[in-house]
């Protein structure tokens, strides 16, 4: 009985130690980094910028006052130069009374120059890191990540974690940019058969302080990141896609191209597309495209050339018809559906021409060919990236207009 009691006492004592007394950390002693920006510098050095949550200000309980808004500043921005991300974070602790901690890291922003030189070693630092999560969002900055982070001043949000969450939620619902997490990027990078891509954050040069702001000039039909025709608000915008070949940035996609990239991957959901009105050619109309079903793929070979045929079905909801045509009318509706499909096919073909020219496969056509190989060594030996430029893609899209909003006639009240 005595032995049992002693054993029980020892076990209970050991259980208390399992909490890890060396790793105990009071919340007042920690500075949570919520966003991390990384840029490339000379001699393979990195410029690491960390946005930390000022916890008291996030909760609205004080903190330093912002000179711009007069409200509490809920984040601090610090930056350091180092050879690796870990070294930079370690160095930054030297100027902080609290230990920098990545457990609440929400987003990692990669600078354009670093992305062009390859980001695999940096990403593996995150996978290896005990605190960082692969569920953090990965974003590409057009230009320097440091500039984008410094100038990212959301109008509504004060909570730094919410700033990123807001962007991600927007991209999940509206598809102006694809939401990509570190895990997804790393998996696409690892698996032969497709190339990774990232959403883009860019400083829009047309945005000025409100007193100097002029109305934006007429814009390109579909904007690249940083070129959105707008004024006021946050100088930084979150649109478009950055396409990679392996871990190196190759180029950018516009909003329309981003939507078609997601459609080809079966990830588009609902999005807004504006295209020429087939019956009033000088006007454009806007429809909400809805991808209800996954695209249907068929793969084949013509000789040694790989061929893919893809069929996509969209459902549409008419939102704006400035030309005034009555598209509820059967004959008009058929022409509208054909025009919408033709427009989407055109964007998809331009997108594929662009990415194939870069030697990249962001759609992941290679994965459609994997099942033609019986074993992994055969598939590895096939070396998919070598075949991307030869790939022949046949895109066929269909549109079914399902809804016309709360008003079914042409965009006219009928008054004279």
């Amino acid at each position: 009985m005595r032995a049992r009691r002693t054993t029980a006492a020892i076990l209970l004592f050991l259980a208390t130690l399992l909490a890890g007394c060396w790793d105990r950390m009071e919340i007042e002693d920690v500075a949570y980094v919520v966003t991390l920006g990384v840029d490339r510098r000379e001699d393979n050095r990195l410029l690491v910028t960390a946005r930390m949550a000022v916890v008291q200000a996030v909760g609205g309980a004080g903190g330093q006052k912002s000179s711009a808004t007069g409200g509490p500043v809920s984040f601090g921005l610090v930056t350091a130069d180092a050879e690796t991300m870990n070294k930079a974070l370690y160095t930054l602790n030297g100027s902080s009374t609290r230990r920098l901690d990545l457990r609440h890291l929400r987003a990692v922003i990669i600078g354009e120059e670093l992305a062009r030189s390859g980001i695999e070693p940096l990403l593996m630092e995150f996978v290896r890191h005990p605190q960082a999560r692969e569920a953090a969002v990965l974003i590409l900055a057009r230009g320097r990540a440091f500039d984008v982070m410094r100038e990212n001043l959301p109008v509504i949000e004060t909570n730094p974690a919410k700033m990123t969450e807001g962007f991600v939620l927007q991209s999940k619902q509206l598809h102006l940019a694809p939401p990509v997490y570190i895990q997804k990027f790393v998996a696409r990078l690892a698996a032969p058969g497709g190339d990774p891509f990232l959403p883009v954050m860019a400083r829009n040069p047309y945005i000025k302080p409100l007193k100097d702001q002029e109305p934006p000039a007429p814009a390109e039909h579909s904007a690249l990141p940083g070129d959105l025709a707008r004024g006021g608000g946050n100088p930084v915008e979150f649109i478009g896609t950055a396409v990679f070949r392996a871990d190196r940035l190759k180029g950018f996609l516009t909003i329309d191209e981003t939507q078609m990239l997601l459609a080809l991957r079966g990830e588009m959901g609902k999005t807004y597309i504006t295209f020429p009105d087939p019956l009033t050619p000088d006007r454009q109309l806007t429809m909400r495209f809805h991808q209800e079903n996954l695209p249907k793929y068929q793969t084949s070979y013509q000789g040694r050339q790989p061929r893919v045929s893809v069929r996509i079905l969209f459902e549409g909801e008419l939102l704006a018809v400035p030309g005034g045509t009555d598209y509820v009318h059967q004959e008009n509706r058929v022409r509208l559906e054909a025009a919408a499909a033709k427009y989407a096919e055109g964007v998809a073909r331009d997108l594929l021409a662009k990415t194939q020219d870069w030697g990249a496969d962001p759609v992941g056509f290679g994965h459609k060919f994997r099942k033609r190989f019986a074993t992994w060594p055969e598939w590895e030996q096939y070396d998919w990236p070598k075949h991307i430029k030869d790939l022949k893609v046949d895109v066929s899209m269909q549109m079914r207009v399902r809804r016309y909003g709360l008003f079914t006639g042409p965009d006219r009240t009928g008054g004279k």
Partner: protein
Amino acid sequence: MENKALFGSWSLAGAAATVLLVELFEPIMQAAVRAGQTAAWLSLLIAGLVAILLYWPVAACMANARCSNLIKLAEAAAGKTAAVITSVLVSAFVVYHSGFILRETSEMAVSAFYSHTPQTFPMVALGLCAFGCARGDLAGIVRLCRTFMPFLVGAMVVLLAGCVGWAKFVYLVPVLGPGVLPLLVNSALLSALHAPVALFLLVAAGDLTDRKRLGPAGSVALGGVTLLLAFGAALFLAIYPLPMGRSVTFPLHLLARLVSGGRFFERLEGIWIMFWFFATACHLAVLLHIAALSLRDAIGTPVKVGLLPLAVMIATTALFPPDQGRVLAWHAAAMPYALGVGYVLPLVLALTVMLRRRWTSRAG
């Protein structure tokens, strides 16, 4: 006469499942990925099937020959010397395997979450817990593991279900991995992963109420856990595809870091760390106890006397490798030899007993 506490076949199956499930946490998953490549899940299914096929005849023979456990089987096959050799082999295997499991667990605890804690601390804590547990009687340990099993299985299922959203199952294609023949050969060798459980079942059989249930109990445990392991491997490779998946040292922890329940339930991996530690302690306690049991049956050393030197040897083995890389490499390199101790030796002993009985009955 010794008043022994016995346990039923469901208790034994539950305990075996707990012991086996620890494999899901350990880097042994890496071995499956290396063996089966994209077909790691298939490889684990084949390995489970091979383990059952090798284990079942031994269990059946032990029941028919009225041998209470593996050591008695050895004695019946080739006398006392064979029993001593068998118990030494079992103990050596337990020391090697448990030492490496102890070291791997503590290395990963320090790498993954206790980064400021000395590496020996989780090792000592875990070792003492397992040692304390192993000092109980076998029925008590089996019941403890059986009681813990549903919680462990539940935790695993929740973890795997929580990761499904991250998976892309196209990464499991090509389905045949390295090709049919290499897949079969590698998978058969992979069945060595289940050797500790086979040994546990065959040594613990002495305290089973109905020895005829030894075969079904072990097969249910091996089969059930194999399904979970195969699903875990498939999910892991669908999230961390080849070739990256080969180098992940702590697969389940990486998966646990992805699990969240909306914006307010994040960073949940601490829950599984608790299960992982407890399951590892059970695994170590069970193996330590059966090694001491096998020594008792062979050379008559009381279990509690045998435990201490075995525990010291396990701790020494755990401290022997100089770094984490070599812990993993040495453990993986030695695992195929477990086939010999876990399956070939019991099978040879069982065949010898059967043949001897046939000859004896013919002579009679």
